[in-house]
């Protein structure tokens, strides 16, 4: 299985502010009533974007900028801290990715969301609190300027600004080497797995 090497994402960006944005907000549970991930993109942040009366609410995902990202199928979402907390539903990053977001920049990410995103080849980079505030402000003020998320150099840059970014070393390694989906590596270890399984005294299901 050959995967693209994801060293850099250069795209327009959208700021979606707020800390502790949970996966129920990203994709409400009623959209999990499905057996495929197809079509999830259009429901990203559904209840934040649309009121109970069916009318649009003021939300960054309703902006012209979001529409440009959806059309380009490429974009950077700039978020706050603990983004993607709550449920393990992969439907959350799947919906944002299918919408068009190909990288996230934030203060911190919930672990399961981070892993689910990385496995899709979508990098989640962190900035310091101060740098994130600056990046967020820049993105709002300059919607036409592309943001570069550099996974290899660990920087986020836009215009004349460059901020130092972070990501777990293993996730960076997987992305830049085209091994962000671990299945090939895991399958290679079949004999070693059998050995480990044999050494464990328990077998559930016996």
């Amino acid at each position, binding site marked *: 299985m050959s995967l693209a090497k994801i060293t850099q994402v250069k795209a327009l960006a959208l700021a979606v502010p707020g800390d*502790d944005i949970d996966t129920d907000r990203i994709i409400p549970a009623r959209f999990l009533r499905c057996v495929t991930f197809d079509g999830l993109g259009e429901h990203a942040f559904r209840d934040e974007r649309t*009121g109970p009366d069916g009318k649009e609410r003021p939300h960054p995902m309703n902006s012209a900028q979001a529409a440009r990202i959806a059309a380009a199928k490429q974009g950077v979402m700039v978020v706050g801290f603990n983004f993607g*907390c709550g449920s393990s539903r992969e439907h959350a990053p799947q919906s944002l990715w299918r919408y068009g977001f190909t990288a996230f920049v934030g203060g911190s990410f919930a672990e399961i969301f981070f892993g*689910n995103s990385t496995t899709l080849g979508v990098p989640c980079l962190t900035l310091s609190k101060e740098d994130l505030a600056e990046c967020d402000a820049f993105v709002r003020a300059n919607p036409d300027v592309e943001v570069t998320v550099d996974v290899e150099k660990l920087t986020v840059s836009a215009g004349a600004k460059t901020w130092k970014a972070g990501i777990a070393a293993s996730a960076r390694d997987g992305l830049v080497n085209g091994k962000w989906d*671990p299945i090939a590596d895991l399958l290679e*270890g079949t004999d070693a797995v059998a050995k480990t399984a044999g050494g464990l005294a*328990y*077998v559930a299901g016996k």
Partner: protein
Amino acid sequence: MAKTLFQKVWEAHTVRKLPNGQTQLFIGTHLIHEVTSPQAFGMLRDLGLKVKYPQRTFATVDHIVPTNELKEPYSDPIAQEMIEALRKNTKDYGIRFFDTTTGTQGIVHMVGPEQGITQPGTTIACGDSHTATHGAFGAIAFGIGTTQVRDVLATQTLALSPLKVRRIEVNGKLAPGVYAKDVILHIIRVLGVNGGIGYAYEYAGTTFDGFSLEERMTVCNMSIEGGARCGYVNPDQKTFDYIKGKPYAPKAADWDAAVARWASFASDAGCQYDDIKVFKAEDIRPTVTWGITPGQAVFIDEKMPALETLNAADRQTAEDAYAHMKLAPNTPIKGTKVDVCFLGSCTNGRISDLREVAKYLKGRKVSPSVKAIVVPGSQLTAIQAVHEGLDKIYIEAGFEWRGAGCSMCLAMNPDKLVGDQLCASSSNRNFKGRQGSQTGRTVLMSPLMVAAAAITGQVTDAREVFKV
């Protein structure tokens, strides 16, 4: 060298180091349900892969099952399609399925312990963030995404990096009317909803020593709400006693060896933790949430926080929360009108929860302004409750007695809030829209506090209502 349970389990299940530096970790037990598995089976088929160790995966159906409609086809065709997809997938690949017709179906985090599948010193993964529940038995148990469900099906392993370990010690005896639910809500309130990122939580101390396995499950269940992907309690005699005799428990000849092995996984005296936090049981009072994250909580007799007492980031979330909840800062939460009461979920839908509430519910009536439902977490729990006559107590009090499932915890089935109804809920998440209505409001609390809310029609102190 002295080691933590986490380190011992991790080492025992390490297959090898992967090129990116992660560990290929063997998953002893894999649990699946209808929501996060169908896409994984689709991926397997696309890649032409088989299920490598089918006897290590167990399935049940919980999220979408209706709780007041036992006959199929369900009125919701999508629910029917999802349950049938799971039937087909488990049949095609030879996976044991605790189906609705077996009398053993239930919330996946209840089925594992009930069947004795959940055992100490094991690794347990499930496409569900509340998998840490199984940590109550001294297992390293955690939620995974759907692509990872595929990884476990295909290889029985995952690519993971080890977690740091934070010991959370609670010592002393809880006051009457204060429960395990209050303990975990308090821990999350103090350490924050993101305080546990990067950590496994080891719950310890004399309070946990005294807890039953069901109480330990309530606490471990909500580890993810504090940001910790997994939480556990070291196994002890209570753990072994709970497992003994369960269908998948080791049998006579193997039992003593299993117990010795399980006990050996407990954290060693003198082992090193990355962090330690200590709480006193007597400092904890009945706790309720007031906002849209589980960390936004107060003791029942406290006022909700004034905005000016919060830092800038917390203040923004609090403003959002107050607007959604239609509550006012710096006022008491006690007395807030309640529309719906939900007793159930993988946090508090176990037999001990149903018994404890029933003890106080006899002779009391649900307020006419309240819709109250009780949803046993599993069919075995429901059967036991009926055997003990608990269903009658609930029904006489005015609760609706329902079938087993996740129900109104996340409202993927027909059990939903309507409009901006406020729900006193024994579940685990008070996120915006969580209970099925975009403007619906959730106040998390212990089961007895839910019952007190049902009777009085408001958020109130169960200790006063029931003279606890």
